[in-house]
């Protein structure tokens, strides 16, 4: 009798998979070319999303996570570490919660390695099917974000390498600034269509291009 039931939820054979935004199509007129677009939108679909829970007072937990991912575990609110193996990222969500994003299909392996490395009270939960990443790039992104979230996205408050969960339109999102003019939204599957359409609509005045 095992303590946990962990299994790889991805099929062995290649099948037709659908990201949360596969159904959604741009209903507003977007530009045909990215030139001149104030905002370029792209879904980073099928990435591996893991929720990590644990205690920062447990130094073995912190060390284990860092060793497994090759990334520092952000201990301060808004912290976001990107890079290392798997083009992975780990983000502070709450004092005992982080979001790990790894390359497509690597979530089970990452979870297995984390479990091998960690002991005591912690949890790893796979949420890859439940959310997606929407990338927004371009000079007008900050202005678009101001139409979407009450969180202050000014560079003084939101430097590159920060991420927060906040109200977004009438839903929530994790907002991450990964480069000067490149931001990511982590959104829930069921809200993805609503948020995608919202962002397209809010971007219209600046010119918006949807990239593959």
């Amino acid at each position, binding site marked *: 009798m095992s303590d946990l*039931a962990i299994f790889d939820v991805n099929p062995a054979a290649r099948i037709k998979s659908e990201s949360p935004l596969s159904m959604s199509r741009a209903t507003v007129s977007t530009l045909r070319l990215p030139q001149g677009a104030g905002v370029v939108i792209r879904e980073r679909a099928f990435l591996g999303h893991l929720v990590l829970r644990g205690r920062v007072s447990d130094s073995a937990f912190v060390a284990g996570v860092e060793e497994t991912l090759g990334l520092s575990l952000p201990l301060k609110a808004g912290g976001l570490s990107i890079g290392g193996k798997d083009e992975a990222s780990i983000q502070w969500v709450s004092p005992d919660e982080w979001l790990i994003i790894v390359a497509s299909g690597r979530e089970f392996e990452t979870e297995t390695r984390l479990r091998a490395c960690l002991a005591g009270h912690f949890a790893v939960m796979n949420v890859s099917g*439940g959310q997606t990443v929407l990338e927004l790039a371009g000079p007008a992104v900050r202005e678009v974000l101001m139409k979407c979230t009450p969180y202050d996205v000014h560079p003084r408050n939101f430097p590159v390498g920060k991420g927060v969960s906040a109200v977004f339109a009438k839903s929530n999102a994790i907002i991450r600034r990964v480069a000067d003019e490149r931001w990511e939204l982590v959104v829930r599957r069921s809200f993805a269509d609503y948020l995608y359409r919202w962002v397209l609509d809010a971007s219209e005045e600046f010119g918006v291009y949807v990239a593959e």
Partner: protein
Amino acid sequence: MSQRNRLDHGGRVDRSRPLRFTFNGVAYQGYAGDTLASALLANGIDVVNRSFKYSRPRGIVAAGAEEPNAIFQLGASEAAQVPNVRATQQALYDGLVATSTNGWPNVERDLMGVVGELGGRFMPPGFYYKTFMAPAAMWPKYEKVIRKAAGLGRSPKERDPDIYDHVNRHCDVLVVGAGPAGLAAALAAGRSGARVILCDEQEEMGGSLLDSREQIDGRPAPEWGAAVLAELAAMPEVLTLSRTTANGCHDHNFVTLHERRTEHLADTAPTFGGRRQVRARLHRVRAARVVLATGTHERPLVYAHNDVPGNMVAGAISTYIRRYAVAPGRRLVLSTTNDHAYRAALDWHGAGREVVAIVDARDNPNGDLVSEARALGIRVITGAAVIETRGKKRVTAALVAPIDPVGFRVRGPVEEISCDTVASSGGYSPVVHLAAHTGARPEWRDDILGFVPGKVRGMIPAGGVNGRMALAEALADGVEAGTRALSEAGFKPGGVMLPQVPRVREGRAVALYQVPHVKPAMRAPKQFVDQQNDVTAAGIELATREGFESIEHVKRYTGMGFGTDQGKLGNINAMAIAARCLKQTIPDTGTTVFRPNYTPITFGAIAGRHCREFFDPRRYTALHAWHVEHGAKFEEVGQWMRPWYYPRGNETMDEAVQRECRAVREGVGILDASTLGKIEIQGKDAREFLGRLYTNPWAKLTVGKCRYGLMCKDDGMVMDDGVTACLGENHFHMTTTTGGAAAVLDWLELWHQTEWPELEVYFNSVTDHWAAMAINGPNARKLLAELTDIDLANERFGFMDWCAGTVAGVPARVFRISFTGELSYEINVQANHAMHVWEALFEKGGKYGLTPYGTETMHVLRAEKGFIIVGQDTDGSVTPEDLGMQWCVGYKKPFSWIGRRALSRPDTKRGDRKQLVGLKPRDPRLVLQEGAQIVLERQIRIPMPMVGHVTSSYFSPTLGHGFALALVKGGSQRIGQTVYLPMPDGKVHEAEVVSPVFYDSKGDRQNV
């Protein structure tokens, strides 16, 4: 028509850009830079509206937000209609179409004016209440006529073609008002690098600088203002917003700014490069500090017939002449209590028009401006005031008399002076509205004869609103406020040199509000206090005589300062009159409460992007596209869009649902159950935690098993239910109701975080991660067997077991749980792979009659089994025992689980509590109405005790009759009894109380 009042030179209008517009159907011309009001005045339009109550002809009085009369309907097309536009705040654009909102059939020939004249004597405050009270049934008829006559503007009947939005902003210093104080404050704050927002409601920033005669730092005031604005524009962290009204101030320095982005261009927003532009934008600003530099509104004097067109506030005269190059008349009489208003006469004189007289209420006015007027040879009458004007559609003369402001009497003979324009000034009221929005009461200051803002945390008043009205003082106060705001926001002030202004010596003003008339106020010709709401001095006096002593009551009884006016011109005068009548001081009388919005804001701007498809999020499952493609009708469940039923061909809903029900009972059906809340629980104390939150025991649930659980609040009332599976010793998969998912997760966190943090357990929502497909029906096993590697034999995969395996090649957790009472498997796969599995099931399902079914069929099938839906069959007042679910209550669990203690409260032990029962209508074809009240007697008498209500009711194709679930007092003891359901149409339905389980009460079908 020529612009007969337009001056040949001067002003800030662009004479090379003429613009055409129509007003009440007549074409006119103005210039770029005009407001609609200045263009109307340029064209010599005297009557712009009819008054609200008395239908008196009215003209333009002011030049800004305080204008009470020139409030119009705008829009060339039906869809573009906008009511309540102040002409003084509307920039002229080519093709503008404006109409008066009052006046029927038109402003020049107004039928209601007859009523107004006749009614003069008998239309006191409360006139409509008193006159049209009885009979009540007639009110709708009266109202129609009165409303049409009164005219309140109208909303468009067609869809608004424009888009609007909200922008969230954060700043260190928000400066409201870009007059001298605001500009100085913004400059002081901006130079330090702080994030500064400067907003101003007007087309052009600069406020009073734009029509100032004074010099700043050796150059004309408007030039100084332009230089400051240019400097601010170059600062990257400074945002300047013109045409932007700070319309509401809320807690903790949250200020909403209403920016009109395209309303100066056309009546609908233009597109740029094919992209729709935002017509109006609401900025939601969180400011560390707010500098309130809203200036003052000049108070007109209250004299008889002060509403005849041609009567204006003095400052407006200067504004129209100096800013718009419009002199709105030929022969001016100025009635004033102060020096500052002399500017109007000097500007009028400078425009080459005749100043007939300046009537000063003071006995010995002696400031610099007074001397200047005298030096020009203008007649100055001292110790006197205009007590009445003559004329109907335009002033023809002013009656001037010596007055005693303190004794409130006319003290000498009346002189009639021929003129066409009367300007008046009773002083300057700080624009305290925003400061009052959060509840701070304004404070009276005798030295300035006005209210200044009460203290609001984080808000710093500067300039005129702070009682520092002279230009030099306003600038200095602005610099000081900007600097203070900055350091309070945590910045080091950069240096700002105080701008130098030559001093103008001003004499002290005298307190005068209502001007005494030779007749007592109640018998004098109407002296208007609030022209927008047609409130007179006599009306206020009458209100105080009728016993209204609180200024708030006087306001409500008279209507003074109501609606879009918010007491801008009239408020202080009204208080002064009330104070005089009540024989008390103005500060004792106090002010009324100013409320948002400062000026009207369109619904579009309030809604922003939150309308139409974005009004509320719509949540979709991973299978939504399939449902759409297969013709599903959808039902909104919370924010989820769930398939309701899947009509085929011309099927009605009833037909579709009956077909779907039969398919499940006889073959196999499939439901998209993805919306059910799912919570993953990990940790060594997970089992203990479940035992504390659920009513039933969890200690012995083994790995591989599922259990239904009820959750109560600590008051013992059911709040949610669902099946939880034991995945591992320390690992559980909880399901919740669709609507309760978020609340249940919060509920788990609440208890964990606040009461039992020592329990080692973590929860996380996996609702969206798993897609869930429930296949139900006798053929379910055969269908699934074709696609899975799981051994489906009943002995190895029994009812309430779960197994992991693959379905259609996709790793899955399959739960053998049933919400229909049929053999059922709920397949959970990672949502990205759901469509593949769903389609694979249909590929194999044809031969078994696989039928998709929606929520309606789900409801019928579950109700046949007596399965409750929390929130439909319960309402927060229902215990597990009321539901007859004692089998789901762990009376012997060691921990006093949430809700346990409450079940022994006397109230929850009552035998006559409402309990869940089934109802079988006597008429088998009848489907009872959900919500119908239940009584025990056929004979209806009123009142009679109601013993319960129907919670769920359907027609069952399986049973062949209608059936219902109901909550009935003492219901468990009433099985077999007959109850009655009186309906609004007089019919009384009859039903038998039965067990809530209508179908397969032993549960054989789900156990096969």
